[in-house]
């Protein structure tokens, strides 16, 4: 399929080649460098026996509350956390007080984390003895989707206040999700959250993703998330990519 697209392009161009310059076939992925570093990260994390999750959502969906609860409730899974934020280290502080070793990447306006940033941040963490490396990405449902960080698992959070059509608005992000966590279920009723509509949209946009409903604030539903996580850890998907 790929070669078909390429052939069409080159054929069209070669007709005009005489009146133009010569053509160099390049075939270079623009994000190739990021992917190379992501592969290095993946190998490095595997050597440390780390299971790495990239956690993504809009701003305000509850990534930090969700991760803080997991850290407190699963002390059997020693974790390190990399937090990406445009500015401030409030999220890092919240996670540190939940018991994790945390390093903050202040992106200073960059809208996403890249594999190289994660690599540098990981240098500042003690990786030995940890089981999980959680990466809280910059709150953004657009740009972070394109950047592989070397993770084994991609978790996309969406909260009940964001509208059931969120997966339709940001299909690129949802399509890359392994797990979709619907958060803030404790306020689903007052905000008239239509769970069937949301699950239907997720099933059509990202049929492969596991969908789990939780309230990171009350803790409801977290057991289902842990069960899914434990199953993935048991499968040893550490080295997968």
């Amino acid at each position, binding site marked *: 399929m790929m070669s078909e697209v390429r052939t069409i392009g080159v054929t069209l161009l070669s007709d005009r080649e005489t009146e*133009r*310059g*010569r*053509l160099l076939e*390049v075939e*270079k992925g623009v*994000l190739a460098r990021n992917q190379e570093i992501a592969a290095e990260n993946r190998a490095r994390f595997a050597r440390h026996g780390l299971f790495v999750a990239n956690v993504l959502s809009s701003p305000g969906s509850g990534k930090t509350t969700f991760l803080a609860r997991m850290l407190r409730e699963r002390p059997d899974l020693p974790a390190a956390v990399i937090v990406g934020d445009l500015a401030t280290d409030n999220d890092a502080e919240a996670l540190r007080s939940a018991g994790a070793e945390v390093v903050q990447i202040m992106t200073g306006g960059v809208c996403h984390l890249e594999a190289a940033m994660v690599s540098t941040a990981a240098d500042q963490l003690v990786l030995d003895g940890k089981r999980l490396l959680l990466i809280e990405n910059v709150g953004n449902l657009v740009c972070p989707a394109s950047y592989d960080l070397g993770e084994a698992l991609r978790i996309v959070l969406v909260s009940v206040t964001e509208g059931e059509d969120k997966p339709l608005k940001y299909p*690129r992000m949802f399509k890359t999700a392994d797990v979709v966590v619907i958060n803030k279920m404790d306020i689903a009723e007052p905000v008239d959250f239509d769970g069937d509509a949301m699950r239907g949209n997720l099933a*059509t946009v990202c049929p492969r*993703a596991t969908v789990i409903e939780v309230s990171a604030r009350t803790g409801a539903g977290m057991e289902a998330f842990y069960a899914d996580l434990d199953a993935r850890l048991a499968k040893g998907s550490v080295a997968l990519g």
Partner: protein
Amino acid sequence: MHELSIARTVVDLAVRAATDDRAERITRVGLRVGMFAGVDAGALDSAFAVARLGTLAETALLEIDSVPLVCHCAGCDIDFEVDDRHGIARCPRCSTVSGDVRHGMELEVSFVEVVG
């Protein structure tokens, strides 16, 4: 919103290819952009106009080849093009929704045209 950094990388890759070829100047750069690459072609074009300045690609044109979203249906064992702006990939034969994306996430420099 990261089109400028992408444009800089595109220029970088093109200049490297042109330099390896001992070319004097780059006239065109071909880019393959998947419908689901998360990149806006208009923004990328504007960013490219800036990123090329002061390089061998100073006057180069950017040609963007859009790649449609193509998914695979396991049941029918076919690849099919997805004609849905939300990326809902329903097999045209059996209507099953597929999550097996085969194309449409590409972001690749496909060719560099040079002179000299």
